[in-house]
């Protein structure tokens, strides 16, 4: 199963969400996971290298830093994989090498926030995904949601995105999510993400 994390807008928390879902899938759901870090920042791979340096524990999953242009070399192997392959994409869409990755994805997870510019980028990205496959399932995950803020655009954004996919409950902004690593999930982190992640797992299983 190939789950792609993408959005045209950078900085919406794609990589963090990808790590959190990988941690949750392996450590809570006991699923086998592989992350293919295709974001040009390679922040997941860097985080893993730091974790390897700082910790002696056995890592629950592998992280492979791969360029999007290299994807065709893996495409065949990725077909019909029962385990979960998570692919973190760069925050852009003007790149032909993204096309086969989006086409092959079984599910797309698209983190976003309720800012006007992010909404526009999110819709553009989702329309691109739908252009290649109108039946592709997209999960829009409101990320870093601040409960103290009254988001003016929330209603309209949710309504528009619901036409393109499933808008999950928000993942609230918590300091604990800024302290994630690639090998463990603490109870507080689990509490913040489990409702959203359980919903996703129950939908895709």
């Amino acid at each position, binding site marked *: 199963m190939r789950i792609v994390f993408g959005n045209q807008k*950078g*900085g919406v928390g794609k990589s963090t969400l990808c790590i959190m879902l990988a941690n949750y899938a392996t450590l809570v759901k006991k699923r*086998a996971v*592989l992350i*293919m870090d295709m974001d*040009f*920042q*390679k*922040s997941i791979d*860097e985080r893993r*290298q*730091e974790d390897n*340096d700082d910790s002696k524990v056995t890592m629950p999953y*592998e992280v*492979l830093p*791969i360029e999007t242009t*290299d994807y065709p*070399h*893996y495409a065949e*192997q*990725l077909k019909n*994989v*029962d*385990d979960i*392959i998570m692919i973190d994409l*760069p*925050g*852009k869409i003007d790149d032909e090498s993204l096309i086969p990755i989006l086409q092959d994805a079984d599910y797309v997870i698209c983190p976003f926030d309720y800012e006007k510019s992010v909404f526009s980028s999110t819709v553009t990205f989702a329309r691109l995904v739908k252009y290649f496959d109108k039946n592709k399932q997209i999960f829009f995950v409101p990320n870093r949601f601040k409960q103290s803020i009254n988001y003016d655009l929330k209603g309209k954004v949710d309504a528009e995105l619901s036409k393109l996919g499933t808008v999950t409950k928000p993942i609230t902004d918590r300091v604990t999510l800024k302290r994630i690593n690639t090998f463990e999930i603490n109870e507080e982190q689990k509490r913040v993400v489990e409702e959203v992640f359980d919903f996703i797992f129950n939908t895709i299983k």
Partner: protein
Amino acid sequence: MSNSIKDIIKTFKTRQDEQIDESAVEEVKMEPPTKTEVVQPVLETKKQPVAKVVKEPKKKMDKVVSTESEKPKANQEILPKISLSDEFFNTLAGQEFVYEDRRIAYIETDLYEIFMSVKRKKKLKNISVLINAILNQFVEDNKEDIKQILTNNRL
């Protein structure tokens, strides 16, 4: 770990080896060394360590900083530019590029390829270390200009 994931990791490692080979050949072609007797064995055997024939590394910032700061136009701020992609700027968002508590440079277009190339070849573990080093070097190299700009209150 399932067989499928193992297969993918195996492919990854094979690809990595191939890319290191390609990188070594490119490096030799792009930077013809002056001593031909050193070059020959490297061209014949791809896996020779590149470091033996590579000249002293260029200062990457030269490419990036030069034009704007060297040729200020009339009525245009003498503000040094660093070039980076918008997306890549996000990685610098938490790292203030400041001098004496003031932001002294803004960032646009593309340095990403340079960073990734250096990172791959030098196997740097954390790219932010490299960015910081380059930015610090940039501030150091342009200290006098920056002082002048700040003195003239041109920011």
